[in-house]
């Protein structure tokens, strides 16, 4: 086609774009994953998933739909609000629109099963961590004692408390109630990226240390964990830092600092000298300022 012809017919690009846009709209609005597709994927995952496997949904915005179809038996709180993916040897990733979670980069893709518009990819972790004890699961009066300053925080079995935007992490029914309205308990915190993490909510009061003593902890070669503050408490980067120290048998295993704006921050402490032993683990949390230090941490021995 000559240049003159091209110029002559260039106008046609506009109606073509209009028609392509119309066609794209028609395709996009008709290519939604159907309920039967989700249910078929759920049945497959239910038949394949072991308790220690991760079940995850991609893209992240599809997570509510995944939870609705898969239910709390498969989309458990432990999987949904996981600290990270390192503890999982295998993951069943349920995805739409060809999406994948960045966490699985570097994992081996073992299989892919398609259920209409929903795909289930099985990923294998090349180097999974062996978790020995998870502190979040030890938030129990048989295994944990909590004190704030000189006062003990008693374990109570109440009703959960929650609120609207800005309330902070929900107060679980099972919790250690501290004098002066504070509490320590397992909750779910929204990190700086609004990703959920199940953790031990342990806000330091500012004028005294908050102490947690875990009994009969089985140690490994490291203490692996994360800590953060509730997103609205740290996103302005105006609050005092929070320090968490881990001790066992009178010796300090390590001290980690969390500054506002660091989000869900990982830490790893060397515990090889205690590997294979059982013992108490003392955790002390302090902050020079107590204003809205809605702090949460999780850790496991591995």
């Amino acid at each position, binding site marked *: 086609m000559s240049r003159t012809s091209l110029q002559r017919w260039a106008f046609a690009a*506009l109606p073509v774009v209009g028609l392509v*846009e119309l066609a794209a709209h028609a395709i996009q609005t008709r290519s939604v994953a159907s309920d039967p597709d989700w249910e078929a994927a759920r049945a497959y995952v239910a038949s394949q998933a072991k308790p220690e496997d991760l079940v995850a949904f991609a893209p992240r*915005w599809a997570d509510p739909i995944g939870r609705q179809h898969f*239910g709390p038996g498969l989309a458990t709180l432990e999987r949904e609000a996981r600290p990270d993916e390192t503890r999982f040897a295998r993951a069943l990733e349920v995805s739409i629109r060809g999406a994948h979670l960045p966490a699985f980069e570097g994992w081996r893709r073992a299989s892919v099963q398609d259920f209409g518009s929903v795909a289930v990819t099985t990923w294998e972790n090349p180097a999974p961590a062996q978790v020995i004890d998870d502190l979040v699961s030890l938030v129990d009066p048989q295994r944990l004692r909590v004190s704030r300053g000189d006062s003990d925080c008693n374990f109570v079995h109440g009703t959960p408390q929650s609120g609207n935007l800005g309330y902070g992490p929900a107060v679980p029914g099972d919790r250690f109630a501290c004098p002066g309205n504070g509490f320590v308990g397992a909750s779910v915190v929204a990190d700086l990226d609004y990703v959920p993490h199940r953790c031990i909510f342990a806000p330091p009061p500012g004028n005294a240390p908050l102490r947690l003593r875990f009994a009969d902890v089985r140690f490994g070669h490291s203490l692996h964990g994360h800590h953060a503050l509730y*997103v609205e408490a740290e996103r302005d980067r105006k609050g005092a830092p929070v320090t968490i120290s881990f001790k066992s048998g009178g010796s300090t295993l390590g001290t980690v600092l969390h500054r506002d704006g660091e989000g869900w921050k990982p830490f790893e402490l060397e515990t090889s000298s205690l590997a294979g032993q059982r013992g108490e683990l003392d955790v002390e949390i302090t902050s020079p300022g107590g204003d809205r230090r809605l702090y949460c941490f999780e850790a496991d021995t591995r």
Partner: protein
Amino acid sequence: MKLPSLRLPNRIGWRDHAIGASLGLAYLAWLLGTVRSLGFPRDEGVYFHAGTEYARWWRSIVERGGDAFQQGAIDSAFSSNHEHPALMKTLFGLSGWLFHEKWHVFTDASTAFRLPGMAMAALAIWVTYLFGARAWNRRSGLVAAILFALMPRVFFHAHLACFDVPITAMWILCVYVHWRALEVRSLGWIVAAGVVFGLALDTKLNAWELPFALVPHALFVQRHAVWRALKAGRIALPASLVSMAVLGPLVLIALWPYLWNDTLGRLQWWFEFHLHHDYYNIEFLGKNYFSAPSPKSYLPVMVVATVPTVTLLLFLVGAMDRGAVAFRRVRAWVGKLLGRTVEGAPPRDPLETDLLLALSFLAAIAPFFLPKTPIFGGTKHWMPAYPVLALFAGRGFDLVAAAMGRALPGLDRRRQLATQALLFACVTFGPLAITEHSHPFGLSSYVPLIGGTAGGADFGLNRQFWGYTTQDAAEEYLNPKAPRGATVFIHDTTWDAWARMQEEGRVRGDLRAVGAPGEAMFSLVQHELHMNEVDYSIWIADGTDAPAYIVEHDGVPIVSVYRRP
């Protein structure tokens, strides 16, 4: 039988007003037909209340006479929502009183409150048509008006008793009247320029940006007269500008009784409130913005993501054509300065229409490139730019149609009309389908270029704000499924909005709203990135992370509904 000719006279006149008004009325009918399916955003509840108070005060002038003018009486009515001017709220309230309470035209009070906003959308379409028809030709005006109407975000906001579409209408009306006043220079048009500017000021704060377009334009149009006067030691200003400077503030104050007392102090408070406005949360490209600086890419990305692509391409064609004309004019002017003759200089437009439209467009969008301008309103805060965008798109269509005519010579009149109709269909059916499909999730909807609603979610663009989708959760799940007297955590929806939805039968009257998930049998989460924390709170409160139901748009979660096990 020979049909009478439908050919319109060349002169733009009453028939064009009839065409513009018809387009506007058709849009108004469409809005009225879809208005009940749209829930109540947070702000609307406030404006319903304020409008009712304002209208009550205006009525009290008749009932109470001089007592109504006591400061106490004025302030008790107009203190409500005094951070925004009064014109639209007064119209909302009067419309509610007349069309719902008195004449029972609308069963829903909300529809009566919303009518003035919808009428403003119709006005914007009318003026856009007239502007395009006068500036270029009827074909340009027609396509401009339709492409403006077929922007999904415009369609969404046009339903609401809010100020964003009204200021869009007042903005383009003000620009149009200013343009006509410079052309006609009659006392009527000059006074109209001042009055309309005053009405725009009394509609929304954006109107204060208009002088950045109108003043340089008027001075440029009348530059020779202004210069001659300066040389003679006088100051000569365009009469329409003087009218705006004098009548504009007078109209603003006259129609906003709150300013009748402590005028300067209250004006100062008004400006300071908006200059130091709180930042609210808004998601953009997967990140939650809650304070300055705002991302400079926000406006261009959101325009590309929400305005139909064919409209934007036509805008580019039209704008580039006008830009090329301006370039040739500047080149000819520079050549003249240098004493050279430049071939092909375009004729001078005494009204400098291109300059006016360009300045108007830039004045509407410029604040959103400043780092301190909050972006929480999504696209609605720069909507005054959209009629101009549509006008350039209309011009673009005209050029494309002309090029098609040149490419297909020798067609008889009937075939010419048929090909033009086909071209028109090609560029409007997409926007029509997208706009129609977006309702009532206009804030969640994105254009096919970025993948539609799901594409918007993939890109991490805002899903909604104002908590207006509770009505969808009620219609799809709560109304048919919830037990009698069940409690519902209504999340981002206001108590006023919930009460009105119950009053109008949109939400079952026996359901009881509560303020915390822990108190509720059913909990709602209107999905926005920063609202995720509410989701997680419900997991602990209810002991489950699985919603019982999800309101979706094209497979994207809009509202999760949890049922306590």
